């Protein structure tokens, strides 16, 4: 990472509500508050980890940044341009710069297309070169993700999960993007294959000065790959800090509980460490709790937590959190 920090992406009060319709005339009766006002910045060349449990809105955040969903509110600036206000054609051209790697390598590749067509599709969509040039580009991309060039004529079902994920990575790289959202890229893979893919992502980042938003629920992997980490709970970011700062001094009670719940491959340590076991489940995002979102499961919750939304503030230098009890 460079020492001076250039902001590549700036997210401002991003809100994404999905309407719920009921009844014969499909009247809107409510909304799922998937993302409920989050703000953060992603610096050029860094990896920002976004962690949280399923349903907390981390994938929705990623998709809304790319304008795959039209946000209910807020702004997303990419290199200073507000993506929310862009016209469709301008946005389409903008997409060359930002790509996505999806979670499920079995569902994200079209089974009827060859590897060459899958990786070449973004190139064709932007009219990048002749068929022959695309062939060459696909071959060099396959090489880049350490797959055999001869695989280009094969179909996805002929590959293992790890290989498919490499195909997904090659497709994301096809247009030389500067920003890639990795939406749980390794959670469907076996442990030994996860390390292969993570190492590949890191090598590519170094080579092409890529910026990643790395979405995951595996906290130890996020610590490994990220420069900074944001923790989400029920549609909001509760804490954001440099990775060592966050893991060494978690301030928010949710982050503390989440970190203490990580299974550690060390039987001696797991015997002695203090674990915070949260009660109950995550509440429904269609009807989130008043005040602090986390109060229903928080061991420290108080009346103020019920009445007032905690303010998002910089508790220590570059360490942000939203909690009344800090």
């Amino acid at each position: 990472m460079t020492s001076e920090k250039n902001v590549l992406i700036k997210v401002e009060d991003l809100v994404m509500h999905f309407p719920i319709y009921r009844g014969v005339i499909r009247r809107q009766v409510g909304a799922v508050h998937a993302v409920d006002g989050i703000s953060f910045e992603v610096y050029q060349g860094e990896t920002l980890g976004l962690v949280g449990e399923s349903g907390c809105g981390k994938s929705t955040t990623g998709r809304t940044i790319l304008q795959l969903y039209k946000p209910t509110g807020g702004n997303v600036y990419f290199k200073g341009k507000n993506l929310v206000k862009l016209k469709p054609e301008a946005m389409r051209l903008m997409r060359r710069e930002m790509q996505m790697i999806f979670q499920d390598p079995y569902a994200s590749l079209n089974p009827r297309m060859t590897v060459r067509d899958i990786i070449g599709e973004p190139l064709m969509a932007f009219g990048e070169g002749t068929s022959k040039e695309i062939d060459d580009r696909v071959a060099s991309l396959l090489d880049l993700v350490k797959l055999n060039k001869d695989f280009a004529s094969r179909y996805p079902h002929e590959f293992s999960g790890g290989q498919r994920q490499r195909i997904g990575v090659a497709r994301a790289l096809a247009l030389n993007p500067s920003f890639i959202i990795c939406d749980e890229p390794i959670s469907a893979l076996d442990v030994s294959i996860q390390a292969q893919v993570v190492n590949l992502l890191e090598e590519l980042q170094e080579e092409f000065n890529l910026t990643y938003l790395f979405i995951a629920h595996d906290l130890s992997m996020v610590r490994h790959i990220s420069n900074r980490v944001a923790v989400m709970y029920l549609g909001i970011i509760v804490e954001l800090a440099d990775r060592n700062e966050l893991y060494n001094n978690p301030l928010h009670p949710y982050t503390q509980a989440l970190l203490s719940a990580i299974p550690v491959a060390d039987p001696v340590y797991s015997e002695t460490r203090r674990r915070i076991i949260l009660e109950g489940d995550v509440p429904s995002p269609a009807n989130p709790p008043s005040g602090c979102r986390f109060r229903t499961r928080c061991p420290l919750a108080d009346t103020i937590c019920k009445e007032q939304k905690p303010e998002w503030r910089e508790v220590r230098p570059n360490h942000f959190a939203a909690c009344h009890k800090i």
Partner: protein
Amino acid sequence: MVEQLLNVQNLETHFKTPEGIVHAVNGVSFTLTEGETLGVVGESGCGKSVTMLSCLRLIACPPGKIVAGEAIFRGKDLLKMSSEEIRHVRGGQISMVFQDPMTSLNPVMTIGKQLAEPLMLHLNMTSEQARNRSIELLSLVGIPNAADRLKDYPHQYSGGMRQRVMIAMALSCNPQILIADEPTTALDVTIQAQIVDLVKRLRDELGMAIIWITHDLGVVASIAHRVMVMYGGYIIEEAEVKELYANPRHPYTLGLLGSLPQIHEQAHTKLFSIEGMPPVLYQKPTACPFAPRCTWVTEKCWKENPLLEPVAPGHRVACWVDTKSGSKR
């Protein structure tokens, strides 16, 4: 002496597929003593689930077939029992919790009915008794308002609660062995911590033995007494949990542990990765199944498959190379 509860010897299971016969389990032997928690670790396709399913004869046959071995439970071979006998063992004395709680519960039956079923079948309870016991069980696994929730359907429960119901169901007939097949894989970390905690508490209260199948080396570290690592249908390393994590010997175990990011990691280090992928065995291997991916590989590894041999008290490894000293065996 602690009583031996289950003794599996030379278990072999094959599957017939259009591509040929897949040798899923290739001569697995292990024992389980009373009150013990045995962790079984390995990647997908290594044969860990098939081994346990074979013991309970839950392999669909065809295409699956248990071709050799025995599984002695309380003096009787599970593999030779009549189907009537094994039906009493399943659910009654050995029960199982599966990975995905949504697909293993019947979506059109209420939770109460599903819980009562084994009780009425195995323990001959009346529906009234079964109902009361179901309420007890649900409270035992920490579901609030148990009596009211009996008439709910699975979709009205969250993922973690469904897994609690599965555990309640597995415990309903006081089994001596609980086989848990990736019970927390589909759950979030905070819910996973709840379930692991629950199973530990129940184990200590009820004194049953547990076989915990997982690919997560972290979860196993916190719950198991003893761990078996499987690869290519073989047990390749077995030891007490602390011994295994302190002194892993097999190159595969070393690789697995090395590929995990350290939670205490302060400075960035590159992850160790095992190149290649796990094999699909269409023939019974004559060489070490890990040889193609192994960094320690020697000439002998391509010629002969190593047997599981003791290297330290209670620690067995199947490898031709002593990774500690670097010498060949």
